[in-house]
């Protein structure tokens, strides 16, 4: 009879207890991986966004605009291939103001070609008469391009709101007052998850005409570079160009721009980390308690085994492996459950985050933590078992 089958027999002795302990480890590791998954998702959203594109915003903060007149000068900077611009609209659903989604006004003629590789138009209204489409734009967008108040919406938003193509969607403006109505002319799928599928895009020109009295006020510029290697140089040129103007600029890669939003979470990631540790520690106590109970019950049995010639080291291993199997099994189950259940649900915190991802690194760390938990919870009972003197073990009456 080898050591391993002995361990299995021991595990099966009190099935209820083994199952309960296993389940508590499953729960703990599920939670641990889910919490770390939030951090993974935040970390992943730092890495999205292109490094071949720059974002230029007002140096003070994003709420201050830039003049439209910057566009021509930005376009003339060496290394800049094309320039587009957009504004945050900040509208609310007039029926249910709590039902939040983002709306952006963009210069579609330049914006769509820049993001051509990131989005794919999966459904669009087509008109009876063929309409001309500007160069570089998906022909499916013909209707959208030809209508002043048309909009494109993300697939996941489209499904969530149960919209239909051609539907007129009312939006009440918080920054640009009044009720605005946009006609849905196309639905996009984000090939790059960074782009998100929870937004509505409409024509900047419409915003300018209706909301700014024809003024050219731009939220931010997007600069497409010919060569990403020139990002640093272009950044410095742009910011130096406007350093002493009425609206100084702050330019960074799109990736850094996205990372800026993640950094706004402040201490939240730290708090999530602390909770993760507390969860692991709480379940460590449960596991340690179980192992102690299990060995205490078997004191007399250990005495018999020692009498029969089992070495101290063997008993040490016996207890430790038993603890290890419970936590390793439970940990693996919990970590995998977190990965597949949470990723499968595509939970995105109501659009605040990109769909949750749990990296394999997190799964591996989770399993590692579980094994460590097994070792820690098993070490004292294992030592007790190995140091037990036969006389004491056999004398002890339970």
């Amino acid at each position: 009879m080898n050591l391993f089958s002995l361990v299995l027999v021991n595990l099966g002795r009190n099935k209820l207890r083994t199952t309960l302990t296993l389940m508590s480890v499953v729960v703990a590791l599920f939670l641990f991986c889910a919490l770390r998954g939030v951090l993974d998702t935040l970390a992943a959203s730092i890495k999205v966004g292109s490094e071949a594109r720059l974002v230029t915003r007002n140096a003070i903060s994003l709420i201050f605009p830039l003049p439209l007149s910057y566009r021509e000068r930005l376009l003339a900077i060496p290394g800049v291939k094309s320039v587009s611009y957009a504004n945050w609209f900040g509208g609310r659903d007039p029926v249910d103001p709590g039902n939040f989604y983002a709306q952006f006004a963009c210069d579609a003629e330049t914006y769509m070609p820049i993001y051509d590789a990131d989005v794919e138009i999966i459904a669009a209204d087509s008109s009876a008469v063929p309409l001309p489409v500007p160069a570089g734009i998906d022909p499916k967008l013909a209707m959208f391009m030809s209508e002043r108040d048309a909009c494109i919406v993300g697939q996941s938003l489209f499904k969530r709101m149960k919209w239909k193509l051609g539907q007129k969607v009312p939006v009440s403006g918080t920054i640009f007052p009044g009720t605005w109505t946009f006609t849905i002319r196309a639905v996009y799928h984000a090939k790059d998850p960074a782009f998100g599928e929870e937004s509505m895009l409409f024509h900047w020109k419409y915003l300018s005409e209706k909301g700014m009295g024809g003024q050219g006020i731009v939220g931010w510029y997007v600069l497409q570079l010919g060569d990403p290697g020139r990002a640093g140089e272009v950044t410095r040129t742009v910011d130096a160009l406007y350093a002493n103007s009425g609206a100084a600029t702050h330019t960074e890669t799109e990736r850094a721009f996205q990372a800026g939003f993640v950094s706004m979470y402040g201490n939240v990631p730290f708090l999530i980390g602390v909770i993760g540790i507390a969860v692991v520690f709480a379940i460590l106590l449960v596991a340690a308690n179980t192992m102690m109970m299990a060995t205490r019950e078997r004191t007399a049995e250990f005495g018999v085994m020692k009498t029969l010639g089992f070495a101290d080291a063997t008993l040490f291993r016996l207890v430790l492996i038993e603890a290890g199997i419970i936590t390793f099994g439970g940990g693996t189950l919990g970590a995998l459950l977190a990965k597949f259940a949470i990723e499968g649900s595509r939970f995105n915190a109501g659009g605040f985050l990109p769909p949750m991802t749990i990296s394999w690194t997190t799964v591996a760390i989770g399993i590692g933590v579980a094994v460590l938990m097994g070792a820690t919870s098993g070490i004292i009972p294992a030592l007790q078992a190995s140091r037990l003197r036969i006389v004491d073990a056999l004398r002890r009456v339970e």
Partner: protein
Amino acid sequence: MAIPISYNLRNVTQRPWSTLATTLGIALVVAILVGAFALASGFQAALVETGSPENLIVLRTGADSEISSGISRDAANILRALPEVQVGADGRPLASAEMVVLINQPRLGQGGSSNVTVRGIDAEGLKLRNQVKVVEGRMFTPGTDEVIVARRMARRFASCGIGDKLRFGQRDFAVVGHFTAGGSGFDSEVWGDNAVLMPALNREGAFQSVTLRMRDTTRFAALEKQLEADPRLGVQVRTERGWYSEQSALMATIIRVGGVFITLIMAVGAIFGAMNTMFAAVKQRTREIAVLLTLGFTPTAITLSFLVESVLIAMIGGVAGCLIALPINGITTSTTNWSSFSEVAFAFRVTPVGMAVGLVFAAALGLVGGFLPALRAGRQSLAASLRAA
């Protein structure tokens, strides 16, 4: 007849390590719950206490934060001249038209940057906020490029120390003082003189909000109706307190829901642990149970007794959990309030309600975890118990 509780108490102390492990496990779960509630309460308090019940705030119709609002100078003058507005000792109406903008500042101690609220006020602005006190340095001098920074923010953001310069709109603003604002939302702001800040930031056209002190608070509803119907203004009116609590609602809900969600999952694990302990206790005491049955205690009394013991262990955990959570009270932390897009620094607030929730939760854990083991204890047959012994 019920088994005396002293029997359970002695039993609990009979197995100190096992009890301790279970208690600590439950304590951690309760601590997380109480902590999450403390976070939500602190966040909410930071915003709700910003508002004084006598003040009302006027914003543009449809605006859902101060930064997206705009009130023209004409409208601000109409509001200031309202007869419902209280008049100060100097004869000027207690009304403050304010500019509110965000500046992006690098964080200290942690990478990245975030948006800090800058509020431009005039002399009346301070009279309306009694809770604001300069605790270090001095008040800014009106008409100069000086600002004061909330002490909580000064620790968290670059260039906010006294003597430092904050640069925006091609101008350097000297930080001359740090202030506290009684744990309110103003504790996350930078204040300066409207007359200087507005031209510097190209915001001369419009204010963001107007705050008024009412002569008679019972007139609020009527005044709200009158102003919101006035076509010259195009505004919405809220009590200051109502407005700031609206601003905190979303985030506080997210924190509470998140906290409860995490605790519930943790609770499942803790319940399994408690069940283990109680099952072991029942098994160990097979003989004792037999004796109790022989003495004439009913099975129900025995079930009840084990249930009491389980709840007792859990409650000790609950109390320990509250004690673990207590030291976080007052620790400041900060995050972005997505409703206003700006950084809010706030202190954890361990409230009696939060602790009560934690204790009730602990008792529930004990009850659920102890239920099956207690049932087993009560159902034990006398013959079998004595034989097992």
